[in-house]
């Protein structure tokens, strides 16, 4: 058994005490973790390192003997990331084990400088690798969090609203990449079915730029809606966008386009057989319909 393993075995409580002292001076976040928890976490980690070192290679921390330690380090990194520790702080937690370990090695091997050097080198390699692992695990946990938040944001940013009986609208804000297009399509199409809507208004006032790819995505959405039996109106086309579309040679001939959402709504109402009618203020009830307008079913013209 290597000296390191021996020391980890025999001097657990002293090592722990020294390690805790190191941590208190190095980096101590009492606001995030109390002493009791820190003690428990340190003890658990030290014991699993001791057992891994006893069985095999001290420096081969990627081997099967060290699986338990790796698991603990991953858990510690993830939980500390959630608690608000920075990755440095988590890594320092591991690195601060060096001082207590070196001290003991010097004491035990004072008479054999070559052995002392060799074991100290092994100790530093071991602790370095374990510390680096916490960085890797920390990063992975953060990446997962970011991915999850990105997905939630995607869902939030594509609301489909019902404008009237049979008319829905989806105001697009931000860029339209293929990932977002999928979500927009699914959201829009399922809402069309749920609300039994014949017309869908896609408003792109909030889309900063329309290139060939964005246009393709929009066209895919419009085609899919048409296959299902709903017609799309593209609105909110700013003059610069109109210019870009023509310059790029994008073909929007099959699509109804309107400059403003208001125009799109008027067209949509017409297509669903509705008319907006001015109410005679004298006949209308007081306080009702301030602007005196009402949406009615367009009367059918006789003799189709």
């Amino acid at each position, binding site marked *: 058994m290597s000296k390191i393993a021996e020391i980890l075995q025999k001097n657990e409580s002293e090592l722990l005490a020294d390690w805790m002292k190191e941590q208190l001076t190095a980096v101590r976040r009492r606001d995030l973790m109390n002493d009791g928890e820190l003690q428990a976490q340190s003890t658990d980690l030290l014991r699993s390192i001791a057992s891994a070192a006893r069985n095999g290679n001290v420096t081969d921390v990627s081997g099967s003997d060290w699986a338990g330690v790796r698991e603990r380090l991953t858990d510690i990194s993830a939980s500390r990331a959630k608690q608000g520790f920075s990755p440095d702080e988590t890594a320092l937690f591991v690195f601060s084990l060096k001082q207590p370990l070196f001290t003991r090695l010097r004491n035990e091997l004072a008479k054999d400088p070559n052995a002392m050097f060799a074991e100290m080198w092994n100790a530093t390699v071991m602790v370095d690798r374990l510390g680096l692992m916490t960085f890797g695990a920390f990063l992975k946990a953060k990446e997962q969090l970011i991915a999850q938040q990105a997905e939630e944001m995607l869902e939030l940013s594509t609301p489909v609203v019902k404008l009237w009986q049979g008319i829905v609208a989806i105001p697009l804000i931000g860029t339209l990449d293929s990932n977002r297009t999928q979500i927009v*399509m*699914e959201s829009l*199409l399922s809402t*069309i079915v749920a609300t039994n809507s*014949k017309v869908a208004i896609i408003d792109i006032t909030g889309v900063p730029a329309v290139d060939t790819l964005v246009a393709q995505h929009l066209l*895919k959405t419009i085609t899919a809606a048409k296959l*299902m*039996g709903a017609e799309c109106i593209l609105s909110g086309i700013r003059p610069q966008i109109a210019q870009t579309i023509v310059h790029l040679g994008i073909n929007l001939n099959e699509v109804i386009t309107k400059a403003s959402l208001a125009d799109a709504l008027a067209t949509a109402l017409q297509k669903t057989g509705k008319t907006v009618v001015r109410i005679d203020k004298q006949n209308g009830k007081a306080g009702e319909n301030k602007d005196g307008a009402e949406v009615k079913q367009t009367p059918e013209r006789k003799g189709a």
Partner: protein
Amino acid sequence: MERIPILRMGNFLLVTIQVDMHDQLAMTLQDDLTNAIANHGSRGVLIDISSLEIVDSFIGRMLANISGMARILDAQTVLVGMQPAVAITLVELGMSMPGVKTALNVEAGMDLLRELVSAHRMETGDDDSEV
């Protein structure tokens, strides 16, 4: 031999496709429908695919074909009830079925058929006043 039933409603024919069709069944449907249109002098065909969870390019072409053949026999066709996932997939496949009229459901489809048939009648000066 199994076939997909075709219902007759006055001047219209109604087909509900509910099973995962294999090629033979699809071809049989095509034959049966064109025969029925001719035999009954039908003016409109409503095809309900709200139960179809998969429409590949073969089925898509078949549906477009039926629409084309019906038109030649002087009948309008409306396809109803395509599921969102199916629509998304067909578009990705590259099938936009340009000549095919669609509606959200049977009710909307029947309304559309009546409109199409009467508009067509105006256009072709057909004196047949049955609907």
